[in-house]
């Protein structure tokens, strides 16, 4: 089993457990034992992250009145919601960029796709985000229960309409198919009976979970071989008793954090451990990051970054501020992953699904669009003599124009290069290109040194580092982690 060099191992860990780490951080990890890095740095303290809040419950209009609102007021509420969801997106992205414990945000991002949900209500979104950030690295049972009781999910999956007299199976079906067992591990009868157990689960006008006893069916139900007068909590417990749930969840985590193709032996190992631990996610992740197979040559650098990972990773590597932070949403939209707007209940399919001709070409241009949009001493390389006609720049401007036209704003980034440049202080001039490529790419063997030289601006050490960096970020290899 070929294991990759130590620096590559740590970079791999930094990417899979987060959104990539800069050279100084990687160097400090290299001096520690793997166990120490994983336990102290990656998993971090177990207290809850500080919540992301854009609205208070009291900011919102009284839901009881919503039905009687006039057109103007309704419009205002809609706007409040849309803007609020935008703000949530921006703030959560920032948490990913700046977090000291990125694994938490990474787990939340994973759960954001697993518990895919769309709601136009900003408060519901805020609550659900809080749940997946608080419990994303905690106990899966707690996470499942809280998500299932969130107004966002209950509303999205129509459980508000699930009543004794007229059961709605949508919620029960998705809880089994997408959240716990996976298709083929339950019968239609199980869905029907579980739907009956979930009758009465809903939320009130204030956006709080509510059990409406009068519409609950309290008769006996038979679910996955067990019979009783079950309610929603009972169903969740029955689902957690099924080993298949541990298998399904750990398998999905394996394919997200390790390799999209899966591995029967490794997944079996994880499922057993996960089930025995009573669904302890922290222990599961520790096991993965400690395993030698996690650092195998066939795993490292095999994953295509999602659009959010790509943009967050880039901004984590080189600190910057966008004049209009909503530009983040433009990138997400163009590349096909807008937070809070998963394509359907199954979440983002990921992998090669991110890539088509236009999305790939745009991905390759993202570093230029961002980093050349406002630059002090880097001239866009296209107008240097060796680059010819300047198509590069023109395209960048065209894309900018396009975005401007569509979204009436432009990506003006205030880039703080200093911390990034400092990371290369000790590196000799002739080793710079290699060092930059190595630090930005989890696997660097693909990039040709002569090519980087050819397109670099060698007028100063600083410009050299910047141009090489942008060019390395503009490669297919940078799409991988």
């Amino acid at each position, binding site marked *: 089993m070929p294991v990759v060099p130590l620096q590559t191992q740590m970079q791999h860990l930094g990417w899979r457990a987060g959104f990539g780490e800069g050279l100084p951080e990687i160097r400090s990890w290299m001096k520690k034992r793997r166990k120490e890095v994983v336990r102290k740095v990656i998993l971090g303290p177990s207290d809850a992250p500080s919540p992301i809040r854009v609205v208070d419950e009291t900011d919102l209009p009284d839901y009881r009145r919503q039905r009687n609102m006039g057109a103007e007021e309704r419009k205002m509420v809609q706007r409040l919601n849309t803007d609020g969801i935008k703000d949530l997106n921006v703030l959560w992205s920032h948490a990913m960029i700046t977090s000291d414990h990125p694994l938490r945000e990474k787990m939340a991002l994973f759960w954001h796709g697993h518990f895919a949900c*769309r709601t136009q209500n900003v408060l519901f979104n805020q609550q659900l985000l809080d749940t997946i950030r608080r419990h994303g690295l905690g106990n899966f049972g707690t996470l499942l229960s809280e998500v299932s009781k969130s107004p966002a999910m209950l509303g999205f999956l129509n459980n508000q309409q699930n009543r004794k007299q007229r059961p709605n199976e949508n919620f029960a079906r998705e809880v089994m198919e997408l959240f716990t067992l996976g298709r083929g591990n339950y019968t239609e009868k199980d869905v029907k009976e579980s739907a009956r157990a979930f009758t009465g689960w809903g939320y009130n006008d204030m956006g709080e979970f509510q059990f409406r006893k009068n519409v609950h069916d309290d008769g006996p139900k038979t679910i996955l071989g067990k019979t009783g007068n079950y309610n929603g909590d009972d169903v969740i417990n029955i689902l957690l008793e099924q080993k298949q749930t541990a298998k399904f969840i750990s398998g999905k985590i394996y394919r997200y954090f390790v390799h999209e193709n899966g591995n029967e032996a490794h997944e079996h190992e994880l499922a057993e451990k996960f089930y025995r631990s009573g669904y302890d996610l922290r222990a599961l992740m520790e096991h993965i990051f400690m395993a030698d197979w996690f650092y195998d040559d066939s795993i490292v650098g095999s994953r295509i970054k999602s659009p959010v990972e790509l943009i967050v990773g880039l901004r984590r590597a080189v600190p910057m501020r966008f004049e209009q932070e909503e530009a983040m949403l433009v990138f997400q939209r*163009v590349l096909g992953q807008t937070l809070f707007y998963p394509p359907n209940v199954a979440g983002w399919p990921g992998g090669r699904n991110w890539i088509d001709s236009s999305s790939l070409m745009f991905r390759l241009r993202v570093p230029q669009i961002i980093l050349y949009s406002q630059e002090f001493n880097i001239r866009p390389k296209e107008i240097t003599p060796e680059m010819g006609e300047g198509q590069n720049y023109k395209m960048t401007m065209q894309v900018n124009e396009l975005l401007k036209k569509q979204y009436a704003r432009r990506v003006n980034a205030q880039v703080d290069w200093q911390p990034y440049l400092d990371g290369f202080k000790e590196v000799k001039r002739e080793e710079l290109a290699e060092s930059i490529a190595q630090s930005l790419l989890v696997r660097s063997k693909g990039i040709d040194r002569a*090519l980087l030289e050819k397109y670099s601006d060698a007028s100063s050490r600083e410009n050299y580092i910047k141009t090489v960096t942008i060019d390395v970020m503009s490669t297919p290899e940078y799409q991988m982690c």
Partner: protein
Amino acid sequence: MLIHRRRFLQVGSLASASLMLPKFLKAMEQGNFVPPGNKVLVVVQLSGGNDGLNTVVPYRNDIYYKLRPQLGIRRNDALALNDELGIHPALKTFKSLYDDGSLGVLNNVGYPNPDRSHFRSMDIWQSASDSKDYWGTGWLGRFLDAQCKGCDKPTQALEIDDTLSLALKGNDVKGLALTDPQRLYGASNDRYFRDLLAKQQHDDEHHNVDYLYKTMAETISSAGYIQQQFKTYKSKESYPNTELGKNMKTIAELIMTDINTSVYYVSHGSFDTHVGQQNQQQRLFSQLSDALAPFVADLKKNHRFEDVLVMTFSEFGRRVAQNASGGTDHGTANNMFLVGGGLKEKGILNDGPNLTDLKDGDLQFKVDFKSVYATLLKKWLGADDAAILQQSYEHLSFI
């Protein structure tokens, strides 16, 4: 020069078709033979849920006017198709296509257990899945998978847009999105990218990197190919200066070249007319009608109208009754237009909507849209529809 090139293409197509000689001779007997590779499908997506009842109007139906006292299209305003149905007054081109025998109207198209969410229902239409399934590939993407494994230029399906829709994403092959061939060419013809590609080292263990390089290489080569083809024909028709007008012009200009594209995909909208439907639908229909007129004229002049089929669809129709804001809310079954010189059946293809047989105030579907796809895939594009749709659906007889 242009004629010469086209002749060359036809010889090529005939030569490759000679393997299936009996079928080819049979087609010749029918007198309208066109090499199968030359058939083109243009999908026009009416995004947002177009109100089908005000598109093809049941203008002799009392229930229609009772449920739509303000919103109903008045009998005198509708452009009559037959005794029961008329077409929205802004869709003039469609009316003349109807008179011309180049329009098919398919009523009551939908699917079982309809979903009223825009994005979910659009997903279902684009992926052609059942409403309980979630598929990550589109019906045209899987067509590409089946047709062009190992194609050197994945330009068989083009979407005229900035980003690619699910409909055109296959497992292995994906369509290409572009708004402007010139701009696509400019974007991909970057020396750094070209150099990167030339220097790329094959790394077999990491298929995904290879996949990215392969996609990059194909994009660069496709962009060059499209640009090269695009230069060979400039339309003399005058298209409206709307987004759809420009897009239809791009499609027409590409169709008239020797490009290997058989599917074009374009969107128009938004038809989500909860409020003030009358004006919005009127405006969007005028744009649609005005963009289609020069498009059809272009095709006719170049003798390509028989080979091109335009299909319109929307993710759902709207409720039969108007709402309180001068609009309509999300509904279910809807109609589809089929436009082309090669239609075998024309006019109103099936019974109009039955307003006495509603389900919770909604129209009930009679034709599964997957049947329409199956028909187009099999009879128009010559593909294995059952494999692509992962199920056999009844074939319709409009082509």
